């Protein structure tokens, strides 16, 4: 091999390494998230672990409190949003109290170009709210809104669907037929 050929081969190897490094950086970008509640995940790029902040009821106070959770996520923001909502539905792992009714599943999540999240839940989200007070309905909606707005700053509002359709109200007291503004509901 000539000297020029060896140089070209070395350059090629370096180039391939650079490509691999660039792809790897983007593929696992989700692992590099900082800590704290201000983390922003606007665009899901790769598959990996993502730390999110979830909001549950604090039994010692009349408000929400946070729990950090590492979630395995897919390539799309909607997948991460679905994972965060599913984590809320599964309930807290620590001392906090569950808000989403037991047995609730996340069926589908879609995010449109205007930052409106359409989250479709199983029937338990509504049936499990029978007998709840206004405070429990407010906590539920605020838990969704705060979890979404803190972790995904590009999102604007939330449309809650139950079995594919909007419900006038989840527990019979608060209007959920319209999109919930994520800022208003924090």
């Amino acid at each position, binding site marked *: 091999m000539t000297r020029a050929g060896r140089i070209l081969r070395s350059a090629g190897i370096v180039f391939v390494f650079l490509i691999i490094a660039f792809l790897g950086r983007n593929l696992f970008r989700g692992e590099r998230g900082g800590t704290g509640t201000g983390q922003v995940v606007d665009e899901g790029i790769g598959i990996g672990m993502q730390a999110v902040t979830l909001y549950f009821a604090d039994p010692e106070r009349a408000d929400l409190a946070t729990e950090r959770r590492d979630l395995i996520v897919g390539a799309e923001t909607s997948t991460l949003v679905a994972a965060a909502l599913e984590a809320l539905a599964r309930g807290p792992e620590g001392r906090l109290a569950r808000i989403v009714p037991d047995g609730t599943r996340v069926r589908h999540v*879609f995010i449109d170009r205007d930052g409106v999240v359409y989250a479709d839940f199983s029937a338990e989200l509504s049936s499990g709210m029978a007998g709840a*007070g206004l*405070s429990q309905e407010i906590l539920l909606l605020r838990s969704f809104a705060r979890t979404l707005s803190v972790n995904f700053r590009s999102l604007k509002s939330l449309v809650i669907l139950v079995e594919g359709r909007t419900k006038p109200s989840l527990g019979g007291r608060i209007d959920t037929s319209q999109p919930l503004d994520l800022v208003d509901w924090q």
Partner: protein
Amino acid sequence: MRVASVRILRFLPVLAMSLLAIVPVPSGRAEEVPTPGRARIVYGDGRPTEEVAILESGRQVWFSARDLSAIIGAPRYWRSDLKRLILKSGAHQMTLVADSDVAILDATSPLHLPAPVHQLGDAIWIPVEILLDADQAPFGLNGLDGASPWFDLPIRWNAGEHLLEVGEPAGNLEAIALSSASPGRLDIQVRGTWEWRLAAADRDRVVLRFMGIAGPGDSFRLPSGNGLYRDIRTTLIPEGVEVTFAVAANVVGYRLQRLERPGRLSVTLSVDSIDLASGRVTPFASPLPDLPTMEGGFMPATGTDTIVLDPAGGGNERGVRAKGVVESEAMLELAMNLARRLSEELGVTVHLTRDADRALSDEQRAAVANNVGAMLFISLHYDAHPSPSVVGPRAVVSRNRPGPRTSVPGRLANLGFTAWNEGQREAVPRAYQLADRLVTELSQALSVPSRGVEEWPLPVLSAATMPAVYLEVATLTAPGGERRAKGEQDAVINAIIRAIDHYRREIR
């Protein structure tokens, strides 16, 4: 040179045939060249009319795939786990394939349709004829698995007026107008074939039913106008549309007259007893019994003020249940005792939205308050909370919607109609005043800290036209919650009476 020209001319027909073969044309209509045109889309749910570009060839009309996708609401209901939508209409089926999970359909998306499709440049046009064939059958939108129907949407093409009518028709109840020329006259204008009947005629509630017509999707209310009519509303009923209103106390009778071209039912109210004596107007019947009122007749109307109390729940809606207390039962008992005491001590007229264990919608509750012309509306509740530290009373007022009022469709918009669920909008400041006084008095009476006044979008409040408060007298899940619910009812009633008395003196 001449020989070369002849050779080219010889191949011209072949060249022309080849060109024709690669330029797509509507199948079966190759002889017609579609021409551009415009059509309007009319949404039955009251959204503003839009104009879109169409192609026309003879009786055939074509809409762009992008417009059709928007018309049927595909972007709104698209599911992230599906890459294709199947649109079904009668025997026709059309598959829309999205090129990403966000972009629903654009001009370059592949589209398969076993019916004629026209492609002009980059745009794809879908013949609306497949909708005509469906004869108003719902145009279904399903996911690829076919197992999750999201909605059915009736779509009709009105060829004569170039209208694509989407959704349930807005109806042929055209207008309800108070006449400026003839005091006391209300005209209800209807087009098409219609029948009507007078279902009730009482000062508190006149009910006119229009059969065989469709009205707007929501209920609407007219301003009080010349003072003779109160709380004019339209409501959809299974057989058509119901128009209801109440009349002022000085009205002696009414006259109804049906007119044609344009179709109109005219209601004329009179305050002149000569009209009654001469038979020109019909006297009203005695008060209807179907408005919820207190039983036993222990509430004489000794004052000019009217208050409506709304006990939470009823029927299957039992509300908060904790520590042996059921919200719907406890609130009914509280409301009945409070009504009697308010009547005796403040001399006000009190109506209950329910005086037995029966279910009511939020709209019915607000309608009772509107129909009786109440000055205050108080919805009585308990709360439950995961935290035992949440103890005291809380009041909620309606959260005002930001931005402009809900648009009212068609001609109704020019007549001063407002959306039914925006009745509370102007009353919120006064509601705050009352709410603050209520929680302050309750907090002092029960020796617990007040949770204050909050704003939330509660349908039970939003349609009421007078100051309306959602009052949680106690939190059942708190330590001692059942004691405050059962054992301290007199203290709760005393506190609410003091608050209402204070509020009435404040606003005078």
